[in-house]
């Protein structure tokens, strides 16, 4: 036997930092120059912000107003309700991570350590202890998921489905002033919590509505498809900010007199209906990318058109548009900052309240850097989770 028809292992390359540097940054004189220039550009552009952040910034404004920025003017003695919501969220994240994404060690450590990191922030001891508690709940969820994966899978999915309604009810309350869970009017909800709730409601509800619109648009029945086309094109032709204004001024005209829904509900409705139009176009793109043969194969097996849609077409369409969905979730989250225009004190809105405090006049750079950082952090986490879901269920996962 000659050497040429032996099955050989792939060549191994010695992987050292020096090798990596040479291969990726200093391969020849041109790449060396590019590397040096880019390093200088990065250094110059970041130096200003870093130096300012670490030396000149007066972060007292954030520390003093952290509660306001997070939950607005939500009454202090009722904040435990929000903590419960956070705790359940931590448990669900821990459980889901343990069930579906456990392989990534670094990400898992950050997820489980996240609440403990938050406990290191300059806050009072009670808050720190609560964050530590949330951390333990998250870790417990992760551990449970590892021990009883089969048993918990369906329960966790259902829990995610009911999580948002339960949280909305808990935050709003349902008893009288002196009862155990007194109602807290939506007019004093605020801060990051409000942004998160608007985004969650808008994104989650817009999803089924958008899918229905996309399917309706492709329907054979001309009235259904015409309705969907008109709806989608009308909404997409209008800026979100206009939709918010209209929801505050025009929506009451459509409702019977004396029937009043509060401004937050109006904003959430407007946001959902707006997002649904964009979601519809995303889903339609996914639907159209499914080859005709898939419809035919499903039909030839005797599946009804509804079964074919539910079991064959939609799952593939959604899988194909996962990257777009992640992007639109992030976009929608950032869009919530526009509700400030109609007088809601969301994360951005409450920041303006903070800046109006006489002792913190002129601290807007600190406040806006903090805002930008939090928006970035949350968007990045969503993006990362999107990538995880893609890796688990995406096209590549079935084509190895």
């Amino acid at each position: 036997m000659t050497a040429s028809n032996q099955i050989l292992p792939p060549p191994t390359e010695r992987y050292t930092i020096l090798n990596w540097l040479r291969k990726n940054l200093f391969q020849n004189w041109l790449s060396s120059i590019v590397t040096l220039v880019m390093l200088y550009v990065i250094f110059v552009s970041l130096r200003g912000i870093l130096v300012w952040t670490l030396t000149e910034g007066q972060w007292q404004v954030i520390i003093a107003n952290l509660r306001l920025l997070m939950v607005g003017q939500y009454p202090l003695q009722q904040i435990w309700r929000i903590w419960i919501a956070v705790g359940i969220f931590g448990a669900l994240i821990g459980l889901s991570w343990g069930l579906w994404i456990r392989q990534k060690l670094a990400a898992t450590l950050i997820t489980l350590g996240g609440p403990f990191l938050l406990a290191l922030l300059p806050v009072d001891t009670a808050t720190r202890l609560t964050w530590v508690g949330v951390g333990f709940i998250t870790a417990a969820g992760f551990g449970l998921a590892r021990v009883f994966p089969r048993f918990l899978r369906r329960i966790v999915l259902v829990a995610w489905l009911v999580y948002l309604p339960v949280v909305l009810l808990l935050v709003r309350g349902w008893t009288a002033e002196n009862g155990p869970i007194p109602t807290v009017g939506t007019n004093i909800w605020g801060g990051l919590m409000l942004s998160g709730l608007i985004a969650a409601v808008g994104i989650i509800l817009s999803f089924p509505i958008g899918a229905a619109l996309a399917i309706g648009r492709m329907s054979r029945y001309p009235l259904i498809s015409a309705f969907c086309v008109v709806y989608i094109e009308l909404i997409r032709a209008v800026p979100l900010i206009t939709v918010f204004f209209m929801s505050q001024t025009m929506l009451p005209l459509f409702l019977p007199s004396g029937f009043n829904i509060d401004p937050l509900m109006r904003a959430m409705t407007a946001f959902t209906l707006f997002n649904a139009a964009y979601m519809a176009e995303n889903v339609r793109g996914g639907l159209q990318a499914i080859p005709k043969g898939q419809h035919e194969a499903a039909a030839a097996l005797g599946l009804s058109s509804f079964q074919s849609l539910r079991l064959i077409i939609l799952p593939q369409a959604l899988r194909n548009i996962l990257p777009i969905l992640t992007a639109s979730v992030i976009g929608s989250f950032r869009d919530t900052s526009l509700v400030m225009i109609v007088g809601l004190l969301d994360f951005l809105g409450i920041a303006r309240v903070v800046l109006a405090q006489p002792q913190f006049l002129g601290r807007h750079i600190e406040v806006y850097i903090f805002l930008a950082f939090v928006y970035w952090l949350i968007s990045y986490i969503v993006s990362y989770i999107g990538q995880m879901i893609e890796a688990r269920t995406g096209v590549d996962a079935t084509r190895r």
Partner: protein
Amino acid sequence: MENQTPQPKSEAFAAGQPIISCHDVHKWYGQFHALRGINMEVQKGEVIVIFGPSGSGKSTFIRTLNRLEEHQRGQIMVDGIELTHNLRNIEKVRTETGMVFQSFNLFPHLTVIDNITLAPIQVRGLNKKQAGELAMQLLKRVGIPEQADKFPGQLSGGQQQRVAIARALAMQPKIMLFDEPTSALDPEMIKEVLDVMIELARSGMTMLVVTHEMGFARAVAKRMFFFDQGQIVEEGSPDQIFNNPQSDRTKLFLSQILEK
């Protein structure tokens, strides 16, 4: 009309009535007259091979038999049910008729076993265990039980087509339609698919096969139909077609494909 007096099915066939009968079937794509009066009767257990040049309407015809294409004139009866706009009848015919496509059309988001069990569970109402056992049986029959938990994208073309055959068989159909099942395959994979089809033909399945695999036709076909320009030009047993073709068109076409 026939659909007003539905006949008791199985008894009728015991008396030797055709399981498929087509009478003067026409089909247009816009101005193009794709099928021009097709008449055909198929008895239970027959293996029919349909061949002809591309654009001759052979694929269109076989697709009218489970209404993936709608015919605009004439009558098609499958297993005692006439194909009309009646959706329930169409679904009934489709559950009794398996189809295998040129491009396999497996569901890429489902594993092999889920591809096969989907329709038996959803349409026939089998439970997961029954369907799974049936699927494993069929995978053994087509020779790839070890691939059950893979996704279609991880299989070779020949393996995918065998899964597609198993998927169609899982509905326990009375008729199997094959629309150029080996045309998208590499030469060395054609044989593994044809072997499965030959085994199926010998087990007594009623089959209509659009193909240019003349070896297959010679081995198992009962009758062959030569299509050209939307019409049946010639019909006969493989012996007649290969050794004594009547029409010049058939002779020319056969000489071209047998030369290769």
